[in-house]
């Protein structure tokens, strides 16, 4: 099959690779019809997350049609259309039973889980196409993918509904939603959102749906800010405005009740080596860039809430722990418990209460995935979200 493979920093290529196979009873194989490039993929593209190997197949936002099922008694049937959550979760462990799917104890294979236990104290759950720290599972920017624990993760979508309407159930829609849920929004609240990428924009939309009185969105790309405004947010361009002062002034001197960091670490993260090497020399974590997060913590009102969907991997330098403690802030963070939120969000989409298609700026054939990565990174203003369609034959001018 054809698949987008990682070959090093800023080097991704579509290549012919072996088709995936069923390895475990609960697996299914799906033929992918749509798959997106995520801001999280840029951390791999920039090589700021360790544990990548040449040839790894990327992609964790995908959907398609079930073409083969494993030997266990499957609830999925060949021919059904499913959206696949980026988090791989078993459904049976303590964490899955608590619906903390992104903390699943079992999905990360024993060897790779070990590396993450050394880094974070406990082993991490697995994800598709996201480095060997989270399991080394082949991703979904490909024609086919193997989906483990398919009786727990994938959600069946009705025939007739367009891929573009439901694809983002795989990650960014639940991620924006959970980011807003983590704000514990109360009536009258103002929520400020840093970053108007896909995650930030869905956080804006979700915060409003969850009853925020006002939402203020912060970025510097005019088109992305405009999308936030279209959703009903007030906007701040951080290149032109002093963000903290602006937020204080716009909230009567009180400050936003809850703040969301939908930016995450930028290009300076881990030193780009294999984590196991880092562990060996006991200096395995370089400093993540936490510029936005620092600002978030300073801007949040006293006694307010901070929600961090933005991804960090290492340790932070000059983290404002004093502001955090003295102001009595509450922080919630984490990879998204996608499986927990999918059913309700799918229902909202089917009921036309939620539109996600506004986000898509470009649809490309899988063959043009490398171009999609380059432009999603370098032309953020125009490229708000790239959806890849394997085998579509969509022509893109290079």
């Amino acid at each position: 099959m054809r698949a987008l493979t990682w070959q090093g920093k800023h080097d991704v290529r579509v290549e012919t690779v072996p088709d995936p196979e069923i390895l475990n009873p609960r697996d299914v194989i799906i033929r992918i019809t749509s798959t997106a490039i995520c801001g999280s993929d840029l951390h791999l593209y920039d090589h700021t997350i360790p544990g990548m190997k040449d040839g790894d197949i990327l992609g964790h936002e995908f959907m398609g049609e079930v073409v083969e099922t494993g030997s266990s008694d499957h609830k999925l049937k060949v021919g059904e259309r499913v959206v696949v959550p980026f988090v791989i979760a078993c459904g049976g462990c303590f964490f899955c039973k608590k619906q903390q799917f992104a903390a699943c104890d079992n999905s990360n294979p024993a060897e790779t889980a070990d590396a993450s236990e050394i880094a974070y104290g406990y082993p991490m759950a697995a994800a598709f196409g996201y480095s060997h720290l989270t399991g080394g599972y082949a991703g979904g920017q490909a024609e086919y993918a193997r989906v483990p624990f398919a009786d727990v993760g994938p959600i069946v979508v009705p025939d007739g509904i367009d891929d573009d309407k439901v694809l983002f159930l795989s990650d960014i829609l639940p991620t924006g939603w959970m980011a807003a849920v983590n704000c514990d929004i109360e009536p009258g609240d103002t929520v400020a959102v840093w970053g108007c990428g896909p995650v930030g924009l869905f956080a804006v939309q979700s915060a409003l749906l969850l009853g925020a009185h006002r939402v203020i969105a912060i970025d510097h790309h005019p088109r992305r800010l405009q999308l936030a405004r279209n959703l009903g947010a007030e906007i701040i361009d951080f290149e032109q405005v002093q963000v903290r002062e602006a937020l204080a002034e716009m909230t009567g001197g009180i400050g936003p009740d809850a703040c969301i960091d939908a930016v995450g670490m930028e290009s300076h993260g881990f030193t780009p080596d294999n984590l196991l090497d880092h562990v060996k020399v006991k200096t395995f974590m370089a400093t993540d860039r936490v510029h936005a997060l620092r600002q978030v913590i300073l801007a949040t009102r006293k006694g307010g809430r901070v929600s961090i969907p933005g991804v960090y991997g290492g340790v932070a330098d000059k983290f404002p722990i004093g502001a955090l403690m003295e102001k009595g802030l509450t922080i919630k963070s984490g990879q998204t418990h996608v499986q927990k939120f999918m059913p309700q969000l799918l229902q909202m989409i089917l009921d036309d209460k939620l539109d996600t298609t506004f986000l898509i700026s470009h649809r490309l054939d899988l063959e043009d995935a490398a171009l999609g990565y380059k432009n999603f990174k370098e032309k953020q203003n125009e490229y708000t979200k790239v959806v890849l369609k394997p085998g579509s034959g969509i022509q893109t001018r290079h």
Partner: protein
Amino acid sequence: MARRTRPDPISDSPESTAKDPNPAAAGLMASEDEDTLIGRTVTINRPARELYEFWRDLRNLPLFMENIESITVIDARRSHWKVKGPADSSVEWDSLITEDIPGELIAWESAEGTSVPNSGRIEFRASDNGRGTVVTATIAYDPPAGALGKMFAKMFQREPKIQARRDLRRFKQLMETGEISTSAPVEVFP
């Protein structure tokens, strides 16, 4: 190796978490020279009885223990273990079940004269907060010396702790999900 004397412990944590753990204090019938102790606890969301029974059928162990080539059950107490070594070698020993409390505990000890003396215990305790079963493996062993020691250093000296951790993780996966998680890529045949 002579053990340093130390004051009676006042911590409530298991002996294996001590900075200088003592197999005897962990309740293992360790021989004089078995002086390295490792312990690891996992919570498995299944009933204790089911976990005990799966483990007690020793033929199941190679399903999740990576280094084991085979286990042959000789009689109710005695079994023969063949464990993978580097470069297609293997090491073998007889193991004796020394204590067996159905649903709760299995303890074992290697027969006399083995090159890698070891003893251990696996305990299954129903969690008192409704989380399934708390499973604790405790193993005492003697890091081998000499040429054989060198050969097995990788397995029995530096790595047993990692090995135990991974084996227990696979045991938990198998019991909780019915399978062992893998991301193994499809082999590319030339």
